[in-house]
């Protein structure tokens, strides 16, 4: 066998080996997912839930899995965990109507459950707009407007005709404005999702207190499904803020991060 051929085989092995492992991993997820769906359709919701949970524990983050898991919890009468999983699914696929509808219905089952904005004032207002547009739309808009700005600027700069150049620069200004708007909204959304700790209350209702301990004064009762922002953690307690602005401390085990 010539040296050239050996090199070629080694190169192809190096390139393809990681892909084979990925494909293998994905196919095992698919098997579990199909199994979970089968359980669900047969009415074995608890088994279906376990299958979806296994997929997630293995490290796969997928909107369809979170969505189906949310449905399982809805059927099992646990709207808190259903909201948690719908929120996770929503983050990955904001445009999906099924996810948004089921999230809306799950929230309607829990009085006081609403999404919480990390920012206040203008930040909150921008976040509302950004959330209604969705991360995918904003990412695409930012990408398109950025490339459009670059293309128009290049066209204007390289044009030999003054009139064309002027038109192109005006169009560049418009595209740049659109880019800035979409980039700011995207930045606000990323800031809220990546740098703000959102969580959902799970399990049983717990008493929220004005300090990190059972001896502090009761503030309100936190029910499963409440959505909140977590500020800090101390002695097994977390400081949270609800959508209505109430701030209190609850046991860390009573909430799960989105």
């Amino acid at each position: 066998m010539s040296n050239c051929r050996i090199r070629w085989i080694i190169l192809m092995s190096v390139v393809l080996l990681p892909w084979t492992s990925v494909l293998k991993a994905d196919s095992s997820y698919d098997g579990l997912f199909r199994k979970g769906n089968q359980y669900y359709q047969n009415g074995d919701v608890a088994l279906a839930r376990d299958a979806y949970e296994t997929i997630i524990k293995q490290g796969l983050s997928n909107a369809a899995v979170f969505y189906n898991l949310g449905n399982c919890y809805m059927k099992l009468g646990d709207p808190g965990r259903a909201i948690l999983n719908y929120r996770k699914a929503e983050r990955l696929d904001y445009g999906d109507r099924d996810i948004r509808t089921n999230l809306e219905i799950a929230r309607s089952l829990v009085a006081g459950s609403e999404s919480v904005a990390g920012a206040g004032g203008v930040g909150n207002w921008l976040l509302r707009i950004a959330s209604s547009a969705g991360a995918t739309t904003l990412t695409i808009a930012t990408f398109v407007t950025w490339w459009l700005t670059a293309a128009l600027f290049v066209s204007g700069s390289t044009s030999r005709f003054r009139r064309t150049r002027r038109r192109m620069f005006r169009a560049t200004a418009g595209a740049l404005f659109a880019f800035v708007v979409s980039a700011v909204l995207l930045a606000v959304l990323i800031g809220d999702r990546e740098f703000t700790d959102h969580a959902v209350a799970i399990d049983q209702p717990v008493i929220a207190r004005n300090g990190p301990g059972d001896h502090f004064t009761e503030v309100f009762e936190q029910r499963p499904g409440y959505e909140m922002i977590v500020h800090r953690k101390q002695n097994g307690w977390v400081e949270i803020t609800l959508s209505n602005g109430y701030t209190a401390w609850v046991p860390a085990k009573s909430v799960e991060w989105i």
Partner: protein
Amino acid sequence: MGDMLNRRMKSIGSLIVLLLWSMMSPNTAIGSITVTARVDRNRVTIFERINYSIQIDSDSRKIPEPSFPVFKGFRQLGSPRTSSQMSWVNGVVSNSQTYMIVIEAREEGSFTFEPAKVVMDGRVIQSAPVTVTVVKPGASTPDGDDEGGMEPDVSSDRLQSLFLQTVVENETPYVGEAVRVSYHVFTRVSIRDFGIQDEPEYQGFWVEPVDLPAQTTLHSRTIQGIEYGEASIHEVVLYPTVSGELVIPPLVMVFQIQDRRQDPFDNFFNSPFRSSVFGTRQETRSSQTKIIHAKPLPEDGKPLGFSGAAGDFKLEASIRNHSVKVGEAITINVILSGNHGLKTIGSPVPPELPKLKVFEPKAEDAVQDPETPGWWRRTYEYVLVAHEPGELTIPGFSFSYFDTETETYKILKTKDFSVSVAPAPAGEQPLSYSSSGREMKIFNIDVQYIKTGNNLKHQVPVYSNKWFGIAMTLPIIIVPVILLIDSRRRRLEGDSVFAREVRARSESSRRFSEAVLACKEDDYNRALDAAATGFSRYLADRLGLPTGGITWNSILKEIDARSVKEPIIEQVKDYWQDLETARYGPVQPSPDAVGNLINKGRNLVDKLEKTRMNPKKGSANKRRAISR
């Protein structure tokens, strides 16, 4: 030093003599004593509070404690507070001790408190009895204070430099109707701070607190010719829950008053109960009791589903989605607004919807209506889910209330909505669930579907994708590159000297390639000519010399004017000399010598390519002149 000691001894001696004399004086031995009992007001309304005080004046240094009477019809609040004064004028000692207690009227009628008693040296000294009349709120006072159109209605016995007044917006409301109660302070003194001591217990009412501005502003008011500063300092909205006479108890507030008179002794002697003599003092005031007559709502014409709301209301509704699929949620927002806090009333009633599942509405907190001052608004979000496809008409939501203006029941209804329900996509497994109240139950209603399919991929938000980062970075690199290329293109088009410089290498390479070809064809003369042309044209292009009529002398002259290193110039000269010799010499060069010359020329061009040929100082303009 001795004088000072003598004077001190004398004054101490005088003091001892004075003390002995006072101890032996007849007043001390006999001990005269008077007891006076009084109240700050003799006529009060029920639940009002008054101060009952016993003052004991004596020429004795030691005053015994008095015994208080039984306050029938009143409730004693707290223990007595005491203060004392002692003076010594012209050798006569006068001692005064005052005991004060706060009592609250609990029954109507005229009450005479028995005399306060003091036992001293076996003698019982008693005060005169005190009579207090407790009347119903709103009853006229004997001195006719309510007459004369005074605003607000303040009886004379309440007119002090500081007093609280209860103002009730409507004294004959219907059950469920909002009654705004505000507590006004009237003052002629400077108030530094105030706070509620006792919040009244409003029995028979549902209470809603009203947020007042943090900064209290006094307005000028004249009552019986006296100018007061007036401000509302506490407000509540009360909703009677039962009909009949309902009591609004007094509000007790504590005020920190800034004394205008700064003489501490003046303050001290004028008011024995002041807590401080350093410019501020604490005063307690209570407002008067009010009685309102809550009217029952008429039974006639009471609509079905009436939730007890009384007042004035408006109802609006909007739908979020007019077309849905089977199992998808239809969201209807219903906004109820009214001159009512809205917290006590039930939600609007959804219509009968047999083809829809109606979830319990999610109600937002009531907020002030920005469009109508004094009104509140509350949004109820109803989620409905269609069971089957088709065109649906959702009848309006209704809300019934008792209009207190017209004293009739009214029913508000929102407009109907049309909704188009499309069939659910085929092949998808429905999720069946629903809710009853807050309890989850399994229903056979298809709401949504689980997601099926293969090729599950690990998803990350689009913005986290590395390709997005690369795609966003690319224009930052590409745009400057394009602009540089364009700039070069333009220069090549507009600057012929620069263009020749740029093309010099490729042109010479072509000529040298021709020379190599000619060499292979054994045409050595042509090869030498091509090499010479290639080399001379290269230098002419690099130096910006005109190609026509180029001579070796002109090239050398131009090279000398450039900042080229001497060894390179020497190499150029040598090579040119070799070429000339080979071309025009008497001996025909060997094929190898021609090949060497061609290679040497190529190498020299490579070397020159790396050499800058900038004009020397003083000849800078020359090249520019050529390029033009």
